């Protein structure tokens, strides 16, 4: 009972100091609790962000070859197993081997497909959906009803009701099938799961060595009939992973693993890939089964991001805990120092150490008990406010065991630290003030003993580890690594304690030489009482440095978003060509919508180069690349980007061509074709023209027939000067088939006119013809290497390949390269470090090696399929293009991509966390500084009374103390800023790069000078203001105080 009464009196003895301890504790706990809650929310958001992927990446696919009649039992079995994954949707696509198209080019192909669910995923634009014949006789008639995407129908010139004959390209004896077009459709969304296994439906036509049209979609079940034969069927289970949270991941992973294993068992594959021992025969009628899924890897990646998010947000949490602990120790020490007299009296009256300890413990429990619920509520409310969540489930938040799992351990730490500090400080005397030489605080002594260097060393090791983990993409991070940023900051802060006394002495010396007292007094007090103020100094140092790190992280992340968006888009605006028949319209729309001067045509290929796969070859109009392409300067070696890319333009030699007079609207070409007697059709011809930029384009030129033909092409819309560099006409398969053995073709250009005016130079062209095509081409560029800017990895691969000149295979060309510039990463490249940039006009002019000693211009035109631009208002230009561009055109706008990155939950969460750290730093430091200043005012009353007796006005005494505190604040905040900047340079790149996404180009630390200056000034102003407010109350009027004399 006596102890309880003592405790009550103790609690009531210094209410303001006690309140300052409680508020410091509550504020720190609230911030830490808030960060814990934020971590959970951000981790969940990170998981959902990772899982927000195209259907292909979040699905399980089963494919197999089936004979007619086998679909039903296999379909039932596969669907049954797929149903074991809750919430998934199953699609099925069956496709037959491509068929030839008699009467068209020998390289034309038709793809037939049976698509389950096609009606729900498309809009029927014309006609009706195909029907399966009602009886076997009708099925054997050789006619199959089909529907076709509009893009394919337009390209083939087919309308509803038309018929198209297709043939088996392997078995000449197989009967031809007549496809009857009953309907034309258009896919509703390119993201629909159906098109993952049938991408042709989105474009209608694909061109490679063969030109494939389709899909010709049959009626359901048509593949079970006799006409189509064997087919490949793919079932795709798209998992519903939206809204998945971190705690649901393990269950989802187990369900996916189980489903994949059961599917493998069902189709007769080994349960463990590559382990025949685990294989069980399947009773289903299928061949060549496959079970493919990226989902396990995706879920693993999501778990990794969640782990990394937690680790990343552990850094600000550790920093705030560190700050809170320092504040707590300082406030508790201050309280204990105020109780020195009470404690001495209790000891004199026989109180034991254990009893005093019990009092300290009781007081600590009261403080923690009051702070815990307040901090839990404040943390939950604060995070909801900062993240913009509603208030609906706030009560649930407060009831959440996870919240109390964060709060209660903190409360226990508070009890332990408060008790220990109070007991220690009570034994040692006041910690706020110490005087005289040779007195050191624990931290200063630790610094002197090299603890700061040890902390910095540990931090450096941690950061190295962190970068290694980051580079390896590992999700397992050890505690040292997680604490690395905090260790770096802590180490630098303690290190700064060595520096501060030196700075303070300089201030003192400066004041010593002046007439007045204020500056000298401030300098003396700070320089000679550093030990006594270590707690305050460390608190302010930590606050200033942590705020600097937090704000630098935010600025660095902002810059990283811009850099990565610039890398992804390549320019302010990048337009990708629509597929199928819309392709040719994209370029025209872009140049019509935007000013042609800000547009750079480009095209890309993925090729192998030496030992490197997936090398992106980007061919651009290099004359505009310097201003249009967004290349970060520090990724370019050997000069500025315009200078480096200008070397491509400087080395241009585009070969021959028949230059048309400026202003030519149309050219005409008179040709004579010698063809087999049976080749009596009109064969479409194209002209290859080079525009004013050097880009070669294909222009429709009419038709070639046997004998003499007049071809014509419009060039009015092309940039002058335009040059004719070739004419070509593809001959259909029929010509080859109809030709007699030994029969040849010939192609001769007689005359070329521009708007009717004859042009000279026709003889400089060469002509060639086969039974497949007729060609007439201008001279190519001289053989020799093509200038290229390559990435460092490519340059090193080329360098290590020996003396052989590196060359690329692009568009039937064998392109030898000469490296004229090196980049770290090539914007938009699939593998950022593997890229080759060449001049598109130069690439078009590269000769094709025909064997022996002859070279000629390639007959394959490398046309642009991307348009990069830097319009004045990219957002407005993007909107205009959205409205005008053909269906399927892709538009990437850099600023929109950056906005998406900013809105990413992980990035947004980290930003909130860091701003919270900055705000918490100011709050906790202000509370701690105010408390210590109040204590200082009380402790200094003796000295203040002496000054008063010496004739110093009370107002000036306060002013002197304000100056003194100002000196402390100024030196400490400035040092904290330096510490923060150093720590930021070391750690923020990692903090930004830990959201689980690739950071390309590498993150550069950004130190926002103006922002940090503003932050530092604000912190200093707040602290000084708090000091002034507190000193106004605590210094008071020293008139009635003792000045060291007796009380008589």
């Amino acid at each position, binding site marked *: 009972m006596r102890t309880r009464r003592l405790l009550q009196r103790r609690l009531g003895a210094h209410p303001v100091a006690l309140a300052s301890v409680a508020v410091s504790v509550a504020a720190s706990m609230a911030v830490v609790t808030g960060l814990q809650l934020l971590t959970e929310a951000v981790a969940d958001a990170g998981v959902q962000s990772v899982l927000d992927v195209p259907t292909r990446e979040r699905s399980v696919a089963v494919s197999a070859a089936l004979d007619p009649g086998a679909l039903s039992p296999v379909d039932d079995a596969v669907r049954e197993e797929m149903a074991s994954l809750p919430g998934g949707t199953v699609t099925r696509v069956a496709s037959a081997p491509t068929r030839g198209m008699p009467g068209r080019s020998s390289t034309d192909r038709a793809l037939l497909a049976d698509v389950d669910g096609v009606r729900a995923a498309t809009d029927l634009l014309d006609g009706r959906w195909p029907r399966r014949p009602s009886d076997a006789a009708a099925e054997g008639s050789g006619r199959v009803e089909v529907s076709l995407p509009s893009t394919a129908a337009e390209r083939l010139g087919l309308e509803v009701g038309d018929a198209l004959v297709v043939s088996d390209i392997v078995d000449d004896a197989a009967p031809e099938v007549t496809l009857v077009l009953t309907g034309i459709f258009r896919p509703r969304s390119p993201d629909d799961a159906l098109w993952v296994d049938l991408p042709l439906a989105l474009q209608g036509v694909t061109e490679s060595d063969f030109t494939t049209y389709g899909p010709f979609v049959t009626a359901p079940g048509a593949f079970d009939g006799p006409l189509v034969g064997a087919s490949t069927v793919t079932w795709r289970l798209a998992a519903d992973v939206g809204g998945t949270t971190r705690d649901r991941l393990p269950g989802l992973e187990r369900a996916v693993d189980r489903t994949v294993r059961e599917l493998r068992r069902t189709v007769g594959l080994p349960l463990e890939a590559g382990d025949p021992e685990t294989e069980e025969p399947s009773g289903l009628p299928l061949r060549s089964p496959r079970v493919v899924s990226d989902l396990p890897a995706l879920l693993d990646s999501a778990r990794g991001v969640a782990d990394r998010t937690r680790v990343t947000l552990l850094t600000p949490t550790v920093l705030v805990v560190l700050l809170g602990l320092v504040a707590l120790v300082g406030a508790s020490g201050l309280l204990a120092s105020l109780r020195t007299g009470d404690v001495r009296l209790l000891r004199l009256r026989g109180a034991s150490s254990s009893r005093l300890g019990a009092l300290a413990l009781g007081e600590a429990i009261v403080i923690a008990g009051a702070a815990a619920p307040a901090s839990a509520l404040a943390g939950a409310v604060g995070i909801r406010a900062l993240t913009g969540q509603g208030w609906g489930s706030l009560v649930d938040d407060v009831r959440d065991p996870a919240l109390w799992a964060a709060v209660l351990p903190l409360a226990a730490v508070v009890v332990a630290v408060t008790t220990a500090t109070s007991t220690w400080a009570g034994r040692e005397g006041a910690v706020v003030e110490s*005087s*005289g*030489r040779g007195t050191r605080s624990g931290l200063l002594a630790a610094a002197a003993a090299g603890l700061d260097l040890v902390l910095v060393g540990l931090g450096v090791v941690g950061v190295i580890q962190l970068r290694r983990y980051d580079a390896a993409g590992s999700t397992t991070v050890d505690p040292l690594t997680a604490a690395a940023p905090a260790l770096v900051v802590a180490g630098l802060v303690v290190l700064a304690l060595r520096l501060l006394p030196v700075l303070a002495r300089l201030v003192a010396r400066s004041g*010593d*030489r*002046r*007439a*007045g*007292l204020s500056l*000298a007094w401030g300098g*003396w*007090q700070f320089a*000679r*009482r550093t030990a006594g103020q270590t707690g305050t100094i460390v608190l302010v140092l930590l606050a200033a440095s942590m705020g600097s790190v937090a704000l630098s992280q935010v600025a660095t992340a902002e810059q990283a978003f811009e850099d990565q968006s610039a890398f992804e888009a390549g320019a302010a605006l990048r337009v990708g060509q629509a597929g199928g028949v819309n392709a040719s319209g994209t370029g025209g729309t872009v140049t019509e919508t935007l000013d042609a001067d800000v547009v750079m045509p480009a095209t890309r290929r993925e090729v192998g180069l030496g030992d490197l796969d997936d090398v992106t070859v980007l061919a651009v109009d290099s004359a505009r690349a310097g201003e249009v392409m967004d290349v970060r300067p520090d990724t370019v070696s050997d000069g500025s980007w315009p200078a480096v890319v200008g070397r491509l333009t400087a080395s241009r030699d585009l070969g021959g061509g028949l230059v048309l007079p400026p202003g030519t609207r149309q050219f005409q070409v008179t040709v004579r074709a010698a063809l087999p007697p049976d080749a009596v059709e009109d064969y479409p011809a194209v002209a290859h023209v080079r525009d004013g930029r050097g880009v070669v384009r294909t222009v429709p030129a009419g038709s070639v027939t046997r004998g003499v033909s007049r071809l014509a092409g419009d060039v009015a819309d092309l940039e002058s000067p335009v040059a004719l560099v070739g004419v070509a006409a593809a001959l259909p398969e029929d010509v080859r088939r109809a030709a007699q053995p030994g029969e040849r073709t010939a192609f001769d250009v007689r005359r070329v006119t521009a708007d009717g005016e004859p042009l000279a130079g026709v003889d400089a062209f060469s002509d060639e013809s086969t039974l497949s095509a007729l060609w007439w081409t201008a001279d190519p560029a001289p053989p020799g290497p093509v200038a290229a800017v390559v990435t460092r990895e490519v340059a090193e691969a080329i360098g290590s390949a020996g003396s052989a000149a590196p060359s690329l295979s692009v568009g039937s060309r064998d392109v030898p390269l000469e490296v004229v510039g090196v980049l770290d990463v090539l914007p938009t490249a699939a593998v950022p470090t593997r890229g080759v940039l060449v001049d598109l006009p130069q690439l078009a002019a590269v000769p094709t090696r025909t064997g022996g000693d002859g070279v000629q211009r390639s007959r394959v035109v490398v046309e642009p399929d991307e348009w990069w631009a830097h319009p004045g208002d990219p957002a407005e230009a993007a909107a205009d293009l959205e409205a005008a561009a053909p269906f399927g055109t892709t538009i990437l706008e850099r600023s929109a991509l950056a906005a998406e990155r900013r809105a990413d939950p992980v990035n947004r969460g980290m930003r909130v966390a860091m701003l919270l750290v900055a705000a918490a730093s100011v709050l906790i430091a202000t509370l701690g500084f105010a408390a210590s200043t109040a204590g200082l005012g009380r402790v200094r009353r003796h*000295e203040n*009374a*002496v*000054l*008063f*007796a*010496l*004739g*110093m*006005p009370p107002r000036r005494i306060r002013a002197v103390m304000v100056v003194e505190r100002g000196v402390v604040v100024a030196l400490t905040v400035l040092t904290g800023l330096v510490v923060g900047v150093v720590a930021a340079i070391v750690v923020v790149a990692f903090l930004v790069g830990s959201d689980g996404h690739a950071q390309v180009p590498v993150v550069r630390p950004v130190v926002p000078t103006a922002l940090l200056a503003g932050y530092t000034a604000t912190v200093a102003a707040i602290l000084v203001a708090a000091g002034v407010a507190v000193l106004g109350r605590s210094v008071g009027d020293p*008139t009635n105080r003792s*000045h*060291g*004399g*007796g*009380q*008589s």
Partner: protein
Amino acid sequence: MNGDRLVVHDVHRTFGTGETVVRALRGVSFEAGPGELVAVRGRSGSGKTSLLNVIGGLDRCDEGSVLLGERDVTAMSDAELLALRRGPVSYVFQSFGLVPVLTARENVGVPLRLRGYAAQERERRVARALADVGLEQHTGHRPDELSGGQQQRVALARALVADPQLLLADEPTGQLDSDTGRVVMTLIARLAKERTMTTVVTTHDPTVLSFADRVVEIVDGVART
């Protein structure tokens, strides 16, 4: 410098109200001339320090007057009292009143800083004051590096550095042993004579009384000469 004549006339000072009222001074009167050292003797709680505070303007009396030359201390405003303590009146405290983190030189220089002396003149005066008390070898020492007597001599140097006309010393030997106290009092008495400075010393130490030109005894707030 010549000191001013101090005239204390019928000074009353009461603390508290009602039942807790303490009448610390009840009509104290005495005079002290330039170069004269007056000792105010009394037991603990007799009102010695209260009297000194009223004389030095640290406190105000309820009745009576304190004249320093032509100046009526009791009629001065707060600002005038502060100016009084920065110039004509100086204190020496029982517990020295030195700032522990300042060296002897810096402590002594504080009053001159308050009066805005330029650094060079300040250093010259500080050096002289410390030499006057025999501490020219200890200018860089901090209080905890000095003995009690040395600390009190630093306090004396600080009190004298601004050439006061009235020196008020409150139990200056209270924390010193008798030999050291004698040394300090010898110094005070010598400097008081040399500078013809009016000096009032409170004490209950008989040793101090031997240095006094006159002794005023205070018993329960009443002076007896």
